[in-house]
């Protein structure tokens, strides 16, 4: 990782998680949290609460040169928020597909949603 984190060595973070690119298909992901609580062989249990791999989220966060350290919790919350974001944008884009009487979500539906919805304004001009 490029020199973004001056405080680097003591990364308060989860490379130990091993929750990297595991194919999560095998695990029951259903996010109602079926009492993920089993404090058993633990490290991976946590990450069932987030579908996105925290290590990847963290890598993205560290790409910001102003960010030195991030708590585990903050990484988790951003992962979770990103999941909610994906759900939201997919649903909002679907409205446009349905207007076009289509059952397949297309790129232009995304573009329409981004243009129309205030919360997505930050995305304008950022997608290929």
């Amino acid at each position: 990782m490029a020199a973004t984190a001056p405080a680097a060595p003591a990364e308060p973070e989860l490379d130990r998680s091993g929750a990297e690119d595991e194919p999560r298909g095998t695990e029951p992901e259903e996010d109602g949290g079926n009492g993920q609580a089993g404090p058993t062989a633990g490290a991976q249990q946590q990450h069932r609460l987030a579908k996105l791999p925290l290590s990847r989220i963290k890598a993205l966060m560290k790409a910001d040169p102003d960010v030195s350290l991030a708590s585990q919790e903050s990484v988790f919350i951003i992962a979770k928020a990103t999941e909610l974001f994906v759900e939201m944008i997919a649903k909002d884009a679907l409205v446009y597909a349905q207007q076009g009487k289509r059952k397949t979500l297309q790129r232009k539906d995304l573009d329409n949603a981004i243009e129309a919805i205030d919360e997505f304004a930050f995305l304008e001009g950022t997608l290929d």
Partner: protein
Amino acid sequence: MAERPEDLNLPNAVITRIIKEALPDGVNVSKEARRAISQAASVFVLYATSCANNFAMKAKRKTLNAGDVMSAMEEMEFERFLQPLREALEAYKKGQKGKKEASEQKRKDKEKKSSTDENDKSRDEEEEEHMDDEQEGENEGEEEDVEN
């Protein structure tokens, strides 16, 4: 390996699954739409991080914490996320506690067996692992806001 933010993608399979679970059955998603959503998600992470980091910097903290992320969500007009995020955070904290107890138990077992040298080493590792939780408890307490 120079990683630009744009190069860091989130795993396609996971993004696809999240999309599928959000949409009704029978709806498909084109590859381009999926790719765009994945990119948007990465941009979201970057933007949220930057926003959260501003709150941390304002509070003169070097460590970004969960409360900062919550504040960022509000600022970004994603208030609708706050409640589910609070709930998820609670569940996460509980899980973390269990993990901490498990690894402290492991450490105690180790101490019984081995020499001090090994202990110092393993203790260092564990402190790094937990460092942010403990530090935040001592230094910051902003996270109380989150729990409210």
